[in-house]
């Protein structure tokens, strides 16, 4: 079984460096943090003692008006784990098709086959999308009605053959589940074959919010539910495929549903241990308009901080700049996030949904985003091996 909790720190041989403000944080200890909401003090005591937070703690962290109190605790945890480091990757997103049999209410990306705007990439096109210097390819697409599993397998083989140095992170648990629903290929077989073809890790999408209520309301019952999503990630972990996890927030979910989602992920990590990163995804209002306005940046900062505090067994928590915006992502590096994702040469899904961040952020901009927060940029690969520290 893969355990990224250990692997992430051993692989790169990084000591937990404590310098500057982080050392200061350690010495703060004990009673030094003061909260405007006194109810946070008992949570702070648990955090410092390394005790696991429970559901009530999670709800309080979401409900307290003391946003900076939550942020400071998360920052303390992040600094203990990673010091001033913040990770990024030179990556490329490939979306093989936007043709999808589902009609999830939050998605502005999917098209029916033959509908205007629908597209299907050939394998040759996708191979050509990967340019020199890209270290990770992220492949996620619609649930295509006709493409056989072998097409996906050949896609991975072809990209791997043409770019053997590039790490391939492909197919959400929802897509893996769809291979079974459509073609009756068991997840273990699908993942084994994809791994043999060159797949190295799995993205964390398709989790949405683990809630039967929301699955019915937002029409994603045709997708892997919580049990199935977790089962598939568990299988991947057992096969030595590390994965990520996400949560789509800022639509019609309740705070309790967010907490339950996070606790479910934490339980799965306890069981299978292969999650690398948790990525909260802010719902993009775009054309689907489940709500009038996007989650405010204060909610996004809080969600990142609460995630860092509840997911005590996840190595990393990400501030995904595409949905947050560069400024909020940069501030989030003080709220528990230790990763900003990457250069993302293509980001069709979020863009068709209305994200207003310029696609294809250059490395210089990522460095600026990290340095503006006073952090040390660390270029990583898909598995969090350190490529270069920008001291």
């Amino acid at each position, binding site marked *: 079984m893969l355990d990224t909790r250990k692997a992430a720190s051993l692989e790169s041989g990084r000591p937990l460096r404590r310098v500057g403000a982080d050392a*200061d944080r350690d010495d703060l200890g004990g009673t*030094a943090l003061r909260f405007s909401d006194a109810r946070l003090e008992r949570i702070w005591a648990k955090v410092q003692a390394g005790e696991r937070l429970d559901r009530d703690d999670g709800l309080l962290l979401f409900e307290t008006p003391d946003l900076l109190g939550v942020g400071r605790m998360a920052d303390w945890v992040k600094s203990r784990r990673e010091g001033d480091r913040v990770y990024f990757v030179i990556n490329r997103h490939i979306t093989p098709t936007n043709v999808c049999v589902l009609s999830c209410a939050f998605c502005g990306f999917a098209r029916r086959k033959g509908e205007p705007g629908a597209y299907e990439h050939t394998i040759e096109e996708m191979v050509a999308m990967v340019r020199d210097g890209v270290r990770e390819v992220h492949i996620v697409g619609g649930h295509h009605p006709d493409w056989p599993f072998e097409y996906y397998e050949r896609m991975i083989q072809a990209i791997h053959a043409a770019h053997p140095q590039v790490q391939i992170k492909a197919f959400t648990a929802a897509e893996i589940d769809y291979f079974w629903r459509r073609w009756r290929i068991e997840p273990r077989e699908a993942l084994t074959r994809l791994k043999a073809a060159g797949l190295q890790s799995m993205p964390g999408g398709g989790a949405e919010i683990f809630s039967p209520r929301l699955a019915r309301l937002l029409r994603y019952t045709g997708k892997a539910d919580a049990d199935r999503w977790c089962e598939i990630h568990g299988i991947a972990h057992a096969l030595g495929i590390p994965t990520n996890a996400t949560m789509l927030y800022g639509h019609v979910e309740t705070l309790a549903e967010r907490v339950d989602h996070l606790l479910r992920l934490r339980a799965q990590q306890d069981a299978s241990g292969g999650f690398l990163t948790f990525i909260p995804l802010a719902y993009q209002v775009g054309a689907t308009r489940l709500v009038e306005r996007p989650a405010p940046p204060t909610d996004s900062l809080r969600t990142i901080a609460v995630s860092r505090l509840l997911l005590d067994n996840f190595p990393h928590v990400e501030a995904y700049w595409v949905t947050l915006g560069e400024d909020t992502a940069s501030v989030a590096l003080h709220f528990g996030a230790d990763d900003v994702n990457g250069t993302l040469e293509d980001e069709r899904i979020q863009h068709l949904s209305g994200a207003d961040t310029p696609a294809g952020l250059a490395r210089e901009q990522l460095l600026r985003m990290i340095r503006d927060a006073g952090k040390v940029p660390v270029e990583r690969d898909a598995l969090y091996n350190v490529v270069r520290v920008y001291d």
Partner: protein
Amino acid sequence: MGGAAVESATLAAVRERVEAGQRLGRAEGRWLLTEAPLLEIGALAQRVRFRRLPEPVVTFVVDSNPNYTNVCVTDCQFCAFYRKPGHPEAYTLSVEEVLARVEAAAARGATTVLLQGGHNPELPLDYYLTLVRETRRRFPQVTPHFFTASEIRTMAEVSGLSVGEVLDRLWEAGQRTLPGGGAEILSARVRRRISPKKGGPEAWLEVHREAHRRGFRSTATMMYGHVETPEDVLDHLDAIRELQDLYGGFTAFVPWSFKPAHTRLEKWIKQPSGPNAYLRILAVARLYLDNVPHVQASWFSEGKRTGQIALHFGADDWGGTLFEENVHRAADFVNRITVEEIVALIREAGFTPAQRTTTYEILRVF
């Protein structure tokens, strides 16, 4: 680990002084600007903000920022708005044209018009006085928040009067408040570099001192993110705090980051300063300027998202609607908002929105 111990002691010392309501010194200010953990000082700034203003209310003003001329002889390195006299794009509005802008703002519910312009030596003092008088007469619901310090100096030069005498005339015409623009950084070194023809810090400070002495209220601004050092910022904050001790005439402190596009400074400074520096400046201002009533979050210059976050870092005011704005626009920086959106943004950030006047009296709680 000695260094770490010293830093913790400083945080403890700053916290102790803040809790005791004691004024922070320059060494503490320096530490806050350069080394202090951002969220710690944000939380401290919030503590001070709520001690001053216990209600979780965030105010905003319905206003507009038209300009009467872009003609200017001062050649500031940071400015993309001005044109030299005789330039094909140079313009100067007539009194009636300016009043039409005021009328347009009033029709949209503005209670404040922040009018400013270049330093145009062709305009007589009477032009300015007429603008104030006629605004008061025709639009009594609008506060003429007109003319920054350097424009008042220009009026003194063209009229041969002293700054104090010009202020007396403006007062007689009905003016009661001044905008705080043109402070940039109140440091002789910085001003020599970026606005050499505008005079040293005293050029700005004298106007506000004379204004406060006469009963005017004004704001204090700071434009950072160019050539200044932390010491220059401390000079700026010290100057404002010292002046405020004399008459208490400043209503608010309003910092914003320099926007380099199309300015002469762009050659050296390509990128505006980012959100973390902004949040730090706000928090430090709230802690250091213990005698200034309000700290404003500038959604306009820093973006709406950073503006919302800023309300958790010591700011208690959202600024204005800025129906018309041309100075940032000249630097390719455009941002628009409505009252409805302001109300939503403040609520989302966890606060109660309230519309205020130019001088921070509450008009309506939403």
